[in-house]
């Protein structure tokens, strides 16, 4: 799946694109939000806070 296809898959204006593994099924838009939340969570722990004194 190319970059444009991914953008189209998570776009909210057309028919939703679903991915599934066995019994588990999720829309690409919801999966993208969950992956983004995980990424932000990891970055919030890893990235140093400006002005931190140690």
């Amino acid at each position, binding site marked *: 799946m190319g970059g444009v296809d991914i953008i189209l898959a998570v776009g909210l204006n057309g028919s939703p694109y679903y991915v599934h593994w066995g019994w588990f099924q999720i829309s690409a838009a919801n999966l993208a*939000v969950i992956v*983004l*939340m995980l990424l*932000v*969570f990891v*970055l*919030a*722990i890893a*990235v140093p*806070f400006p*002005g*931190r*004194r*140690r």
Partner: protein
Amino acid sequence: MTVTAGGSEKRSWTAAVRRAGLRVLPPEKLLPDEQPVYVASWVYVFGVLTVAALIIVIGSGVVLALKGPAWWHVSSVGLFLNSVHLWSVELFFFFMVVHLWAKFFMAAWRGRRAMTWVTGAVAFVVSIGAAFTGYLSQQNFASQWVASQAKDGLNSVGIGAFFNVLDFGQMFTWHVVLLPLGIVAVVLAHVLLVRKHGVVPPFPARDSGTAVSGDAMGERDGR
């Protein structure tokens, strides 16, 4: 009201409430001007980001409620405010979930903070209800689809007669009055409890010779 010669009310209920309020939450705890050093981390900003998103949600929602469905579906400003409301809700849940993960993995109920954790969990659940009734209040095909799908689930657990998702007036009232009042009340209690007990400290590092000892952390936590 009893007023003494010195002008200080001693026995009135308002004075008693004020004294109790100052005892539980003195101004230096309610509006602190500094935080412990461990708060200097990005992972601690998601609570206040959630509150910021909630303020945008309520502000845009007030305008939408005043103007009505015809306005938010047709006019350009209405469509814009409708989108602001939707995306601020998306951010509200995004930040709240990251905040929830952070507080879960640092066991934020430590140090007599159980009610802080519980009010946060209740705020999350009530917010899901508010978002659901928001989808039902859109007045478009999507809301009809959501309502027709949800009615079967709610009927199957026996609450469809009291919480009728096909009744726009009932769902709209839940969405713009009852659930926002609930969220604001629970979030207010949550924030005041955070101020009362302080931000939960991180777990002590166990393998470092320079780390704070577990006993010292326990004292700091109030354990």
